[in-house]
């Protein structure tokens, strides 16, 4: 930019300077936390699993509340996603929780395309965020982030291994979202079967190259607990919203004739571990991974697909604007060309139509002329005929008058003769014919 003389003295690359007293910026984390609290948090969970595996119940149990919604039927023609957003408040922290559930997953006969609606949904959320980020006038800090932060994949408790549908779906999702596989309805499996099942699942995931979410172990305060929890994946959970009296406390549990399964008992199931990991320890990390890893990957792929690059073949840095500008000009040029073409076509067609119309007009004129001529000829003929008729009539009249005159003359002169002749004629029938 302008003639700015900036002498940057970064002594030995940012030396640490000792403080001679208490400055007070140790309150910075608190300031940050206060800001976050006033803004509120937002968390989006996607539950993928077959119908009837207890997704909604688990959500209710996790967040200690009753989310509304009826259970889905098994007769869905395709996989759909149902999304609901809730406002939770605990002490002074507000959480905007969005729970997205698959409806009809695994119910169809042909399940080849079952994963597609899920992938499309996740992509759509990334897309919306990318659109907002690329806007000129944007409000990113006030934007309701709808990107999926965690995907809980519900595995059916068969006790054997993962279904092929599970493997295919997880493989498609692992680069787009943080997957946490959990074994649903795990009160159907015994302890020994459970350990075998877990080992089988993890080995299958590893051999198929599915990358599930690993709890972060780089920060000392949570490294230990995350490390141990990583070994317990996938969590075997049970969900229940019914409270039963056990001992002298009310606890969430499921009652069977042979015993009661306590949800929050670590010896019975891994529900407490899941809650710890998902909410109490790693919620922020899940959000950060979604933003910095999955979203960035999506963004990079999308922009590269559109033809943007960071550096051109001469390794000079391209700017997004320049490429965008170039593409835009290209597109505008094309548009203009098309517009020209269309205009040409339009003009052409108009000319043709005009020519046609002119032809028709000419024809009409000719016809009119012909008709007129015909009419005139007819009229002339008629007049001629009338004239000849008149002549005839006149001639006849003349002859008539002449004949009458003659008759009157002859009747005077030879009236008797005529009488006689008439008598004779009368008498002689052969002469009466005149």
């Amino acid at each position, binding site marked *: 930019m302008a003639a700015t003389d*900036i002498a940057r003295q970064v002594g030995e690359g940012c030396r640490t300077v000792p403080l001679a007293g208490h400055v007070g910026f140790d309150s910075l984390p608190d300031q940050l936390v206060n800001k976050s609290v006033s803004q509120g948090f937002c968390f989006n969970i996607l539950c993928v699993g077959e119908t009837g595996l207890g997704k909604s119940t688990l959500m209710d149990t996790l967040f200690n509340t009753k989310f509304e919604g009826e259970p889905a039927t098994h007769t869905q023609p395709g996989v759909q996603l149902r999304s609901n957003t809730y406002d939770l408040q605990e002490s002074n922290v507000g959480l905007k929780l969005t729970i997205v559930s698959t409806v009809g997953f695994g119910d169809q006969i042909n399940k080849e395309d079952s994963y597609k609606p899920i992938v499309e949904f996740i992509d759509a959320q990334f897309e919306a965020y990318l659109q907002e980020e*690329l806007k000129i006038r944007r409000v990113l800090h006030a934007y309701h982030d709808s990107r999926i932060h965690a995907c809980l994949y519900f595995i059916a408790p068969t006790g054997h291994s993962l279904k092929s549908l599970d493997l295919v779906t997880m493989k498609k999702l692992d680069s787009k979202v943080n997957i946490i596989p959990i074994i649903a309805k795990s009160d159907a499996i015994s302890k020994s079967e459970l350990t075998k099942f877990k080992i089988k699942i993890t080995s299958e995931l590893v051999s198929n190259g599915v990358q599930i979410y690993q709890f972060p172990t780089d920060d000392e305060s949570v490294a230990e607990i995350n490390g141990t929890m990583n070994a317990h994946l996938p969590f075997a959970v049970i969900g229940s919203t019914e409270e039963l009296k056990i001992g002298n406390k009310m606890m969430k549990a499921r009652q069977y004739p042979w015993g009661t399964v306590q949800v929050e008992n670590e010896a019975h199931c891994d529900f407490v571990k899941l809650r710890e990991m998902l909410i109490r320890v790693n*919620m922020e990390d899940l959000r950060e991974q979604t933003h910095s890893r999955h979203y960035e990957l999506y963004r990079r792929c999308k922009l590269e697909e559109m033809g943007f690059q960071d550096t051109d073949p001469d390794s000079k840095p391209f700017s997004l604007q320049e490429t965008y500008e170039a593409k835009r000009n290209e597109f505008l040029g094309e548009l203009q060309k098309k517009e020209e073409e269309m205009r040409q076509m339009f003009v052409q067609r108009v000319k043709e139509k005009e020519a046609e119309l002119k032809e028709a007009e000419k024809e009409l004129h000719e016809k009119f002329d012909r008709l007129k001529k015909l009419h005139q000829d007819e009229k002339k003929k008629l007049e001629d005929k009338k004239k000849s008729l008149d002549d005839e009539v006149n001639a006849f009249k003349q002859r008539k008058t002449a004949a009458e005159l003659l008759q009157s003359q002859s009747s005077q002169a030879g009236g008797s003769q005529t009488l006689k002749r008439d008598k004779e004629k009368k008498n002689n029938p052969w002469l009466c014919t005149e």
Partner: protein
Amino acid sequence: MDPLRQSPSPCSSRPSSPKTPPCEIHGYVGIEDVLDQVKIKAMKMGFEFNIMVVGQSGLGKSTMVSTLFKSKVWKCTLPGLGMPIPQTLQLKSVTHVIEEKGVKLKLTVTDTPGFGDQINNDKCWDPILGYINEQYERYLQEEILITRQRHIPDTRVHCCVYFVPPTGHCLRPLDIELLQRLCRTVNVVPVIARADSLTLEEREAFRRRIQHNLRTHCIEVYPQKCFDEDINDRILNSKIRDRIPFAVVGSDQEYLVNGRCVLGRKTKWGIIEVENMAHCEFLLLRDLLIRSHLQDLKDITHNVHYENYRVCRLNESHVLPRGPCWVNLAPTPPGPPVAPGPSKVCRQAREDSDDDEDDY
């Protein structure tokens, strides 16, 4: 780049998400542990703060910075003294990492020696504005890369402390010009420098006059009224706004007063204690800048000033129709990508083709 941009539009940092039904939680879930998670992550990453001090030489800018952060920020003890006054305005930037109770702060201080020292000070604010905009530009370039870094290094100026010379009268034209331009691009905190040359009554009168000047010229200094989010903020910030500009005295030498070791300036008629509220308002400045509003300064820089710069910059580089223009990235079936921007040309072409249809 026109420095006289429109002032930032008021906006709230509270998320405007869709209306959702509140749900009651029966029992402890542990959502509030997310606050600890946020804290741990923030402390691990460290904080950054960039401050710029603007004012004429001899007003005690460098001393003030040293007093604020209680460390020898500058390598030489008293810059300016004995050094020739630079002919042009030169900006000097120093970066240090300071740590307190586990919190690491990367502090960058930018000094402006030579500001307002020439005979003709016309356009002397250009290098300053240029520097600020350059930092925004750097951040913008990082942000629009395809492969971006996880954490973009933030060199944008979060706060600019403007030192008003203690004339006791009112703001000078140079001050007003600069403040008008600065407050549109960065958070500005004006202070009355070397306030030990004014008595308390003179200070108050001077302060009122400066506030009046600021109001007359529509200069919005930090904390800006339009960014107050709720009633608590407004009450707190009104108190601060009432005392701005703070009358401060800086010193990095310690003297013994009443058995305590305090920072102060020793004169023949007494010792002016820097951290004594009765003597000067340094504590208010320190609390505002560091203890209570540091995060807020950063947020407003990021959400308002940087966004304004970005809007101007992106609008400049291509001629676009007014209003939000977004890139249509909707996935299309295999074929050439749908080009960006619904433009007027496109609409006209469609209208033409419609007209074509109607004629047949």
